[in-house]
C-alpha cells in the first residue's frame, strides 16, 4: 500500500515538473481577455443587471439598455432606442426601439421593454433601481417599437437611471415568479441579451466567456470571443496583463508608472467622477467654526499630494466639481498656506475647542494610494496643530458607523470619502442635502446648511437643461464658502490595454457605465 | 590455540570508552574474558560497573560517535570454525555474525521488540536475512521456534503484535529470535531483571534447557547473585569497569577472595537467614559508600574507598589479577586475608 502511494506521488510530481516546462501559449488571436470587473467599477460574480450597483462595463457587452452615455459621459445617446424624446414638461419620455433581435433569434419588441421596466420598478425582483424609478407613473407600449414612460413629477435623474436598465427578454423570464427571479440560475447559465456578444459560459469565480453575436444589428463583431477574468485584486490582474494572459485591466493609479514608456501597453486615463473630500462631522462641536474648516483647507498641500502621490493625475477640487462649466468665477482656491491655517485656528480658539486631542479620521479606502494620502494629510494637519488619526475600515464597518441614525461622534469626527459627482451633477445631492441625513439618506457628515439645501433643491428642480449648469455653479459657490466638506480633488482612473488592441473603448465611468463602448468594433492585432 | 580448552569467545584487554561533553570516560578497562562452547559465563556487577557495555562491545553495537572500543581484541570462533577478531571486522562482516553466529537477548522484552511488526515477522527476520529463506518457510521456522521456547498456540501468537503478549511470553519470543539461526554464542543482557520471580524462574529454566540442548556458549549479564548461582558455570564479578574476581561459581561464592564479592554476598538478604539475623539483633552486612563515578576514579584499586581491608598500597596502583587457584582469580593484593 505504501509503495503504491509513493509510486503515484512520484507520477504526480513528474507530471508537475513536466507541466512547469510548458510555456503559456498566446491566447487565440480573435479572443480578447480582460479584467473587466477589476477595480471600483466592477462587480465580479453579479450577472443580474437589476441587482447591479456596478459592473456595467461588462454587462453592456451582452445586454443593452435603451439609452446610455456617450463615451465621454457627456450626453445620453440611444442604444436599443434609435431615438428618444423628452416632453417639454419633463413628464413624458418616448423611446423608439431599434430593429433588434435577442441572442436566441426572437425579435425585441416594446413588450420586452415594458416587461423590463416592470421588473426594474418592482423591488421584489431584486431590483436596486426600484426606488430611483418611483417617479414613474406609467409605462406603455403603444406599438411594437415604441415605449412611453410617464412620470408623476419631473425628475432630472430619470435618464441617468434609464441608462442602467438593461433590456431583458419577456419570453425567457415571464414564467419565473418575480420574487424568485433574483435567485434564478438563468442569469449565470443562459442569459439572453441583445448585445454584440452572446453568453457562452461561466466558470465559477474564474471567468465569463462570450462569443460573437454574428447577427448583431450593428454588424458582425470583429472579435470571436471576449473573456472577462476575475481577479482578487488589481495586483493580480496586473501580473496577468504583464504576463500576456489578458489584454486589458483597470489599474490603481500608483501602478501606472510600471507601464509608462512600455511600448507593449497603452494607458487609458479618465475622470473618475468621484470627488474625494474630508468630511467634517457637523454633529461634532469641534468643526462648528468655519475658520477651523478653512484652516483644514489651507493646511493641506493638495498640489503637492497630487503631484507626488497621484503623479499629477488629479484635479484639485474647491467644491464638489472640477468640470469647467460647473465652476463659477472667483471662488476661493484655498492655496497651501499653513501660516494662514495656524492663524485661523488661533482666531477660532482651536486650543480650547480641541487642541491636540486625537481626532478620528474614518475611511473605507484601503488602497495603498489612499493609505499614503492619509499619511500625508495626517502629517500636514499635524503641522498646524490638528491631530488626526486615520482609521481605515472595511466598507460594511464604515457604513455601519456613518449611517447609524445615532452615530458615535467619537468614532468619526471626520471622514475621508468620495462621492459620485457626475456624469449627472445632481448625484452629490444625497451627500449634502439636510433632507438626506441618515436614516433618510447618506448625508453622512450631517451637513445642515440652509443655503446649500436651497441651492441643491433649485438645481435639481431646474427643468431647463441649459440653465442647470448655472444652478450647479451656485451649489459650488455655497460649498466653497461654507465648506460642508474640505474638498480635496477628483482623481483620474486608469486602464491599461495591450497595444495590440484596436478600437477599444473604455472609460472609468462610475459603476462601470453604461456608456457606448461599441464592443462589436473591438479587435485585436498581432 | 591448541589448548585443551578452546574458547569460542576470547576477550583480551578490552577497553571501551565513551565520549561525553565532559571528556572521555573509560567504561570497561583491560577486560579479559573467555567463554567456551557449552559454557555459561555470568558477568555480574551493579549498575554502572560496565557489564552491559562489555556485551555491547562484543556485538559492536555501541552507540555510534559515543561509545568506541579503544583497545583490545575480541576473538570469536564462528559456526564454520573460522576464528576472527571482531574488533577488526568491518560493519558488513560484523553484520553477518550478528543474529547468525551470536544471538542476543536484552533486558526489556517490551522495548526490544518492534511494536509495529508481528512476533512471527520479527522472529523470521534473521532467518530470512542469514539463510536467504523466503517468507513462508521462514515463518514456519519461526512458529517452530516459538513452540520450542514454550509458547502455546504458536501459530496464532506468531500473528500477534508484542503488546498482545504478556511479559514472560515476550521474553520467550526474544529468546526465540536470538536463537533463530542456531548461534554458537548467546549473549543475555539481564534477561530476567524486568520479570516477576515466578516468571523469572520459568525463563531461567528455559534458558538452562536450551543451552544444554544446543551446547551454545552463553554470556549471561546480571546483577542478581542468586540468578548467577542458578545458571552459570563460571562467574566474573565487575566493579567500576574492571573484573575484580573470576572463577567457577561454586568456588567464588563459597570462597570469595575479593572484598567486593564478599560484601556483595553478605549484603544480600537470604531466605531463612533473615529471621535468624533479626532474632540475633544483627544487621545486614552493608558495603558503605557508593561506587565511584567513572569520570572521577580514585587512584589505585577502585574499591579501596569502600573497602575495610584497604591499606595504603591499595591506593597506589590498580592491583593485578592474582591466581587463587588456576581457575580462580582475584584483583586484590590482600586476597589471602579476605578469604579468612
Amino acid at each position, binding site marked *: 500500500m505504501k509503495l503504491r502511494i509513493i509510486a503515484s506521488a512520484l507520477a504526480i510530481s513528474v507530471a508537475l515538473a513536466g507541466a512547469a516546462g510548458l510555456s503559456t501559449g498566446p491566447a487565440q488571436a480573435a479572443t480578447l481577455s480582460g479584467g473587466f470587473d477589476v477595480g471600483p467599477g466592477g462587480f465580479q460574480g453579479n450577472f443580474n443587471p437589476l441587482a447591479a450597483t456596478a459592473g456595467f462595463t461588462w454587462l453592456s457587452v451582452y445586454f443593452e439598455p435603451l439609452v446610455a452615455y456617450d463615451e465621454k459621459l457627456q450626453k445620453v445617446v440611444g442604444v436599443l432606442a434609435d431615438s428618444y424624446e423628452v416632453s417639454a414638461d419633463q413628464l413624458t419620455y418616448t423611446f423608439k426601439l431599434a430593429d433588434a433581435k435577442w441572442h436566441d433569434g426572437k425579435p425585441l419588441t416594446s413588450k420586452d421593454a415594458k416587461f423590463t421596466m416592470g421588473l426594474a420598478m418592482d423591488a*421584489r425582483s431584486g431590483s436596486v433601481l426600484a426606488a430611483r424609478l418611483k417617479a414613474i407613473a406609467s409605462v406603455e407600449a403603444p406599438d411594437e417599437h415604441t415605449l412611453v414612460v410617464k412620470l408623476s413629477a419631473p425628475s432630472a435623474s430619470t435618464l441617468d437611471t434609464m441608462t442602467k436598465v438593461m433590456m431583458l427578454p419577456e419570453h425567457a423570464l415571464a414564467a419565473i415568479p418575480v420574487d424568485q427571479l433574483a*435567485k434564478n440560475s438563468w442569469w449565470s447559465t443562459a442569459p439572453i441579451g441583445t448585445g454584440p456578444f452572446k453568453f457562452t459560459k461561466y466558470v465559477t469565480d474564474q471567468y465569463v466567456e462570450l462569443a460573437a453575436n454574428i447577427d448583431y444589428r450593428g454588424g458582425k463583431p470583429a472579435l470571436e470571443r471576449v*473573456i472577462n477574468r476575475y481577479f482578487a485584486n488589481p495586483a493580480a490582474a496586473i501580473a496577468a496583463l*504583464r504576463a*500576456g494572459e489578458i489584454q486589458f485591466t483597470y489599474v490603481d493609479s500608483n501602478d501606472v508608472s510600471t507601464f509608462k514608456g512600455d511600448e507593449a501597453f497603452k494607458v487609458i486615463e479618465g475622470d473618475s467622477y468621484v470627488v474625494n473630500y474630508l468630511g467634517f462631522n457637523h454633529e461634532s462641536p469641534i468643526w462648528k467654526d468655519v475658520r477651523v474648516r478653512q484652516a483644514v483647507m489651507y493646511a493641506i498641500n493638495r498640489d503637492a499630494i497630487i503631484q507626488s502621490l497621484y503623479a499629477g493625475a488629479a484635479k484639485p477640487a474647491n467644491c464638489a466639481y472640477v468640470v469647467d462649466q460647473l465652476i463659477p468665477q472667483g471662488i476661493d482656491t484655498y492655496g497651501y498656506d499653513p501660516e494662514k491655517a495656524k492663524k485661523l485656528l488661533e482666531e477660532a480658539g482651536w486650543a480650547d475647542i480641541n487642541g491636540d486631542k486625537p481626532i478620528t479620521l474614518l475611511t473605507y479606502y484601503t488602497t495603498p494610494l489612499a493609505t499614503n494620502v492619509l499619511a500625508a494629510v495626517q502629517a500636514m494637519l499635524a503641522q498646524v496643530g490638528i491631530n488626526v488619526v486615520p482609521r481605515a475600515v472595511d466598507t460594511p464597518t464604515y457604513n*455601519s458607523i456613518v449611517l447609524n441614525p445615532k452615530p458615535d461622534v467619537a468614532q468619526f469626527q471626520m471622514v475621508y470619502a468620495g462621492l459620485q459627482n457626475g456624469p449627472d451633477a445632481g448625484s452629490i445631492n444625497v451627500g449634502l442635502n439636510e433632507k438626506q441625513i441618515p436614516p433618510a439618506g447618506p448625508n453622512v457628515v450631517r451637513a445642515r446648511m440652509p443655503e446649500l439645501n436651497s441651492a441643491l433643491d433649485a438645481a435639481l428642480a431646474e427643468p431647463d437643461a441649459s440653465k442647470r449648469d448655472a444652478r450647479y455653479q451656485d451649489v459650488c459657490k455655497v460649498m466653497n464658502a461654507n465648506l460642508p466638506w474640505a474638498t480635496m480633488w477628483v482623481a483620474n482612473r486608469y486602464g491599461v490595454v495591450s497595444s495590440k488592441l484596436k478600437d477599444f473603448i473604455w472609460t472609468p465611468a462610475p459603476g462601470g457605465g453604461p456608456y457606448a463602448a461599441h464592443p462589436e468594433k473591438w479587435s485585436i492585432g498581432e | 590455540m591448541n589448548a585443551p580448552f578452546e574458547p569460542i569467545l576470547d576477550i583480551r584487554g578490552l577497553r571501551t570508552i565513551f565520549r561525553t561533553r565532559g571528556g572521555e570516560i573509560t567504561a570497561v578497562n583491560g577486560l579479559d574474558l573467555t567463554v567456551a562452547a557449552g559454557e555459561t559465563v555470568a558477568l555480574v556487577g551493579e549498575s554502572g560497573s560496565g557489564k552491559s557495555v562489555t556485551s555491547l562491545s562484543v*556485538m559492536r553495537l555501541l552507540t555510534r560517535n559515543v561509545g568506541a572500543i579503544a583497545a583490545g581484541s575480541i576473538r570469536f570462533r564462528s559456526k564454520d570454525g573460522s576464528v576472527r577478531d571482531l574488533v577488526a571486522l568491518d560493519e558488513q562482516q560484523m553484520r553477518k555474525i550478528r543474529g547468525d553466529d551470536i544471538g542476543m537477548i536484552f533486558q*526489556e522484552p517490551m522495548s526490544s521488540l518492534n511494536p509495529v511488526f508481528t512476533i512471527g515477522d520479527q522472529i523470521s527476520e534473521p532467518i530470512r536475512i542469514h539463510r536467504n529463506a523466503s517468507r513462508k518457510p521462514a515463518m514456519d521456522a519461526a512458529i517452530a521456534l516459538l513452540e520450542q521456547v514454550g509458547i502455546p498456540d504458536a501459530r496464532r501468537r506468531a500473528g500477534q*503484535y508484542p503488546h498482545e503478549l504478556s511479559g514472560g511470553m515476550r521474553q520467550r519470543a526474544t529468546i526465540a529470535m536470538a536463537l533463530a539461526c542456531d548461534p554458537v554464542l548467546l549473549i543475555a543482557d539481564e534477561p530476567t531483571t524486568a520479570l516477576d520471580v515466578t516468571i523469572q524462574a520459568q525463563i531461567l529454566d528455559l534458558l538452562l534447557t536450551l543451552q544444554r540442548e544446543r551446547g551454545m556458549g552463553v554470556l549471561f549479564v546480571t546483577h542478581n547473585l542468586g540468578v548467577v548461582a542458578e545458571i552459570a558455570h563460571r562467574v566474573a564479578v565487575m566493579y567500576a569497569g574492571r573484573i575484580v574476581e573470576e572463577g567457577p561459581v561454586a568456588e567464588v561464592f563459597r570462597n570469595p577472595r575479593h572484598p567486593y564479592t564478599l560484601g556483595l554476598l553478605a549484603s544480600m538478604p537470604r531466605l531463612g537467614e533473615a529471621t535468624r539475623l533479626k532474632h540475633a539483633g544483627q544487621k545486614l552486612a552493608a558495603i558503605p559508600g557508593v561506587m565511584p563515578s567513572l569520570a572521577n576514579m580514585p587512584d589505585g584499586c577502585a574499591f579501596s574507598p569502600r573497602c575495610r581491608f584497604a591499606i595504603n598500597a591499595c591506593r597506589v596502583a590498580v592491583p593485578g589479577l592474582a591466581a587463587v587457584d588456576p581457575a580462580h582469580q582475584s584483583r586484590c593484593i590482600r586476597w589471602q586475608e579476605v578469604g579468612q
Partner: protein
Amino acid sequence: MLQYSLRRLLIGAGMLIALSMLIFLLLRLTPGDPIDAYIDPNIPMSPAQLSDLRSQLGLDQPLPVQYVAWLREALTGNLGFSIKRQDQPVLSLVLSRIAPTVLLMGSALVMAIMAGIITGVVSAVRRNSVADLSFSVFALAGISSPPFLSALIGLYIFAVSLNWAPSGGMLTPGAEFSIGDLLHHLVLPAALLSIAQAALIMRYTRASMLEVLNQDYVRTARAKGVKEFWVIAKHALRNALLPVVTLIGSTIGLAIGGAIFIESVFNWPGMGLLLVNAVETRDYPVIMGSTLIIGACVIVVNLLTDITYAVIDPRIKVG
C-alpha cells in the same frame, strides 16, 4: 472499527452544530448590518432602496429566527443564497470550491510529505552533518517566512519575470480543459503552499526519527544482523512515522491558513478565496456555509487521521 468511526462521526456532527452556533454568535457580535456591505459609499442608495433590499434578503427577521430558519434549511442541504450574488446558492458555491482547494492542498501535501519525510530521515540519520544542518536551517526558514511573502515573491519571479507559470487562476480561460493546463497552473501555488508544511514535517520526522533510533528495538534489529538501510527504512521509519501521521492531520489547519493567502495571491478559485471575499463583504450565508464545510472537512480529516493511526499502529485497539 465501524462502531468507533460511527461514534466519532456522531461527535463530529455535534461539533458541527456547536460550530454553526459559535459562528452565528460570533457574526451576531459583529457591528453593523450585512446590508451595509451592499452600499458603495461613492454611489449611495436611498433608505427606500435599502429597506427593499433588506426585506428581500430576509434580514429583517430577529436573529434567533434567522438561525433556526438557517439550521432547518441547512439540515435539508440548503445553505441559503449568497447575499452579494443572489442567484448563487451557497451550497453549490461552496461545493464548487472544494475540488480546487482539495486539489491545491492535496498536491501541496503530497509534495510536503515527500520532501519533509525524506529530508527529515536524512537529517536524523546523518545527524549534525552538513546535510542535516542545511535541511534544518531551510526548514526553520520555511516556518519563519510568512506565506504571503513567499507567494508574492514566487509569483513575481516565476510568473511575471520568468514567465514559467501563469500568474493565477486554475485553467486557461477559453481553452479546452486539459490536465496539462491544470498542472501548469497548479504547480507553482502548490509548491509555495507546501513549503511550510514540508518544513514542519521535516522537523517532526527528524525529531521522531532521532527518538526512535535510540529505541531498544532498533538495537535488536541491528543485533539480528539487519542491514543498516533496512534498520532505518523498515524498523525505525515505520515507528517514526506514527506521530508524523498525527502531525499531518493537524497541519490541515495550517494548510488551510496558507491556502487562504496562496489562493488570494494566485487567484485560485478555492474555499480560501471565497471565504476572504465573504468576510470582506460580510456575506453571512457564505461565511456560515464555508466555515461549516471547512469545519466538516477538518473533522473528517481528523477522523481519517485517527483511523489511519489506528490501522497502522497495532497497539491501538478501537471499537
